[in-house]
């Protein structure tokens, strides 16, 4: 039993027995608090991630990075947030107002919604859906619309181009992403993320599904719009892409969404391929939650390493790679997995 779940139980008992709140109201109240905790958790990750990103980019470019405020410049980002919040909210006169205003909120909501099914340890999940991984893919596919809304609502050529590129890129890379996750689902026979995690007690799925892991890794870089596949915001061609006209709090919502999506994609990678909260080398005295966070941050390290090592690819190369390499390879992985499953069943009888 996890310490967090014990706290939730104590709190629920205190609510119902201690001050006599009806059971349904207590349940709703606890759910709201848990949702807020998840949002705060994602935002806390954001602070660490932005600091890490700056430090990594400095390391790969042989610079020092932020080093003035706090230990190793850690308090640079909190100060940046204050600056963001105090900025004027500039809205272009020709913008499509309702679309422009809701776009950043939509981006934030779709990024947070994915967290409803992602478990961070045994039972540490808002809603352990039976179709967890399918829900994640479905919510991920709606994320595209927020970027299109931003690009279109700004009424700016560069924003529009950025939005269209995002749509093309995200739709193309969703397919290999879903196909690569299908291999793992075939091995476990379940769409539930906790079940998939439990199935990896003996062997992590990264070993039998190495092809799927590579496909998932590349397509999730494209899904999160990070370099080397960040065509939607290519500074040289598009100034900043779809969020060019945004400033202040609306811009920071896009940034929160981007990093929340990054952490979500890393969490899914660690649950599906890296064994989730199963301990490494049988070190069970370390709690599962810590293992999960270590694996998530390992995946984030890989993403950042890619981002600051490789140059941006051209748009047609990106689309060709998605449709002509990743989709056939992920289909081949499904084919090999199904043959492997039948051979395994024939051997073990």
């Amino acid at each position, binding site marked *: 039993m996890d310490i967090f779940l014990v706290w939730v139980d104590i709190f629920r008992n205190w609510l119902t027995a201690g001050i006599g709140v009806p059971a349904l109201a207590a349940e709703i109240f606890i759910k709201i608090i848990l949702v807020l905790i998840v949002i705060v958790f994602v935002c806390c990750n954001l602070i660490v991630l932005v600091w890490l990103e700056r430090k990594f980019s400095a390391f790969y470019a042989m610079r020092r990075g932020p080093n003035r405020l706090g230990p190793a410049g850690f308090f640079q980002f909190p100060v940046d947030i204050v600056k963001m919040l105090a900025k004027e909210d500039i809205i272009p006169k020709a913008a499509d107002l309702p679309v422009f205003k809701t776009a950043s909120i939509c981006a934030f909501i779709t990024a947070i919604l994915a967290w409803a099914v992602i478990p961070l340890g045994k039972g540490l999940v808002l809603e352990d859906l039976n179709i967890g991984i399918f829900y994640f893919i*479905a919510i991920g596919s709606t994320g595209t619309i927020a970027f299109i809304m931003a690009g279109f609502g700004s009424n700016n050529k560069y924003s529009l181009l950025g939005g*269209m590129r995002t749509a093309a890129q995200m739709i193309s890379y969703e397919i290999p992403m879903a196909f690569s996750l299908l291999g793992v689902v075939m091995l476990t026979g379940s769409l539930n993320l906790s079940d998939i995690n439990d199935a990896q007690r003996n062997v992590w799925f990264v070993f039998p599904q190495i092809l799927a892991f590579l496909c998932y890794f590349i397509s999730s870089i494209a899904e999160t719009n990070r370099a080397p596949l960040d065509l939607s915001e290519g500074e040289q061609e598009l100034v900043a892409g779809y969020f060019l006209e945004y400033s202040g709090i609306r811009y920071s919502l896009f940034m929160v969404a981007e990093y929340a999506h990054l952490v979500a994609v890393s969490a899914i990678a660690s649950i599906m391929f890296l064994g989730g909260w199963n301990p490494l080398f049988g070190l069970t005295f370390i709690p599962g939650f810590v293992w999960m966070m270590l694996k998530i941050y390992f995946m984030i390290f890989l993403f950042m390493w890619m981002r600051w090592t490789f140059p941006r690819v051209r748009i047609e190369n990106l689309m060709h790679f998605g449709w002509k390499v990743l989709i056939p390879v992920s289909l081949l992985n499904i084919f090999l997995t199904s043959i492997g499953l039948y051979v395994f069943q024939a051997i073990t009888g």
Partner: protein
Amino acid sequence: MTMAVMFYIIAFVTLGSALMMVISKNIFHSALLMLISFIGVAAVYILLHADFLAAVQVLVYAGAITVFIVFGIMFTMKGEPRKTNPFSQNAIPAAVLILLFIVINAVTVIKTVWPFSNIAPPETTAKAIGDLMLTKYVVGFEVTAVLLLTAMVGAIVIVKGVKKSS
């Protein structure tokens, strides 16, 4: 009681956004309102304990079809965006048709005897749907797959043909 309240809220949002979609003068707004309507339908599926179907609805309609429609709008839109979805001139024939449609629907809904079931909804729906699709309804499933493949090949042929002639 809670279910009924939730149902009426969802129905209001779904039908309201569908109506707004028809009324809106800006075709881009219409596409976005259609997205809200699709998500409302997914919410109705969730009320009916069909979680897998709801996820499919979000994935296919909200995630793919709306994006493609918006994509098409972006490529073809010109001029002032507020006048891209004008009203039709044929108001009277349309009104007659809609009235007929409503009457036929209402008569069928009232005349049909709706069977009630006291069986609890199944816990997992994905497995049952998968089993049925690949055993009892395998022919329909395969025909759909072939149809989609044909559409895809057709699209590629059209694009390639334009390239050759130019």
